[in-house]
């Protein structure tokens, strides 16, 4: 699920990026590009981690209310 969200966000970037020409090779600093793309991916990835945490808590909450086994298990894991 997570990867597909990031996919949708970044497909736009790919379309934009096609407009850029390739530049001088000798002074290429690939590390800068890695940092930039990583920061973009991380923003979306962080959101999906948060959603994951929220989702587990939500399941655990309803699990407690309805007394399901799943809810108890999640409680144990959270602790």
């Amino acid at each position: 699920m997570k990867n597909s969200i990031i996919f949708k966000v970044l497909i736009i970037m790919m379309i934009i990026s096609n407009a850029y020409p390739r530049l001088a090779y000798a002074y290429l600093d690939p590390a800068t590009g890695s940092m930039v793309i990583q920061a973009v991916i991380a923003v979306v990835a962080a959101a999906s981690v948060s959603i994951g945490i929220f989702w587990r808590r939500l399941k655990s909450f309803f699990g407690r209310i309805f007394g399901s086994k799943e809810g108890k298990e999640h409680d144990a894991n959270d602790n």
Partner: protein
Amino acid sequence: MTTNSGSFRDPFGCILTKDGEIYRSIFPPGVEDFKAARDAGVYDKLIGANLLVSHQEVAIENWAPEETVYCLKHPRLPFISYPWEWCFSMLKDAAILHLEIMEELVADGFWLRDASAFNIQYDGERLRLIDTLSVGQRIADSPWVAYGQFCGHFLAPLAAAAYRDIRTLSLWRNYIDGYPLDLASGMLPLGKRLRPGLLMHLTLHSRAQIMADRKEDIGKGDRSAGKPKVSDRGLIGLINSLRKTVKGINWKRSSEIWEGYQEIRTYQDEDVAKKSEYVDNVVKRLEPEMVWDLGANTGEFSLIAASEGAFVVSIDGDPACTEFLYQHISRSDSIKNILPLTMDLANPSPALGWDSRERLSLRERGPADLVLALALIHHLVLSAYVPMPLIAQWFGGLGNHLLVEFVPPSDPMVKKLLANRGEEHLPYSLDVFQSDFGNVFNFIDQISLKNGRILFLCERKKK
């Protein structure tokens, strides 16, 4: 004392060999991270989880480099191998190992300063990170400094191997600091290039690298003011995404050689049993610590040698064979002391890297106590056109003892090799074999199989 030629790039420390023992010197730039990791119990945690090679702090002796602040002693590894020799799943496991370690570290406020495939080695039980100094304190809100390296060392070669051709793994020999991402991305079929994980970490990543190098930035110096940021949660998300992407890359082999080998083998079960028994007896008799099985196929005889306690480096040119053996050992609970490596034996691993001294050739990593060359030399003479005397000399440089199988010209497999060559081939006969190998080795034992093949046990002549 000698300094390991593969560790000169790291300003934090270096690896030393003294009297056959392995030490690590930690220099002033590496002290802060080392102390922080040690005091936080991070090393103990990783070592306990079988992720990192163990160490003990030892007193600094006078042979250590002058700038040494701490000295660690590591257990000696049986054999150093390089990614251009690894099978697909070994590279994939090494990638996942990096991500597992990252996950452990990030929780404690640490991370890996680099993500180099060379930092992972097989120790006879499992893959482990061998570079203790890769562990560093996480720079708050900073992107993972080794992200680009991880993609070049793992994601790019794995994707190219799985989705273009498994043989692209040999590109490692040229790109020893990881594959250029645009090269790997360009090799992928469009459908694979657009897969979410690969699109992000490979395709767009390579474009971002190209876009980042702007002509107008030249001479502007420090660009740290606008540095991108990555939160802890973002970093965890990034690691999760990388892991999902790596795990999703699967190589579907097209070769049927694993299942087919038993069928194409032309000799009888009786001969197989006799050959296996002889290999077993030779290993029992010589008690070698290190065996190199050259042309090992799926490792039938490597397994025999390993079952007697030797560490076996099992080499074959077919990536499907090494993959098969690697998976066999990964699943096995008992036999772990085999390292399968892919290598064309007519073009064995050369010395590579800076000044051709950074990564060692196959020969430089020897000698082995025993070399197995079973059903190999007819391939070298008749397919690779290597004259018999050169083969004998080469074996002489690889090991002290040699168990070599001579396959006679009348054998169906030799006839098959010669089918389209007529008489135009290098000299190949029992006389030629005995004469050329006799110049380098003493024959100390031999056994003939019913099918006409002969196994010779040889010992290298003293110089």
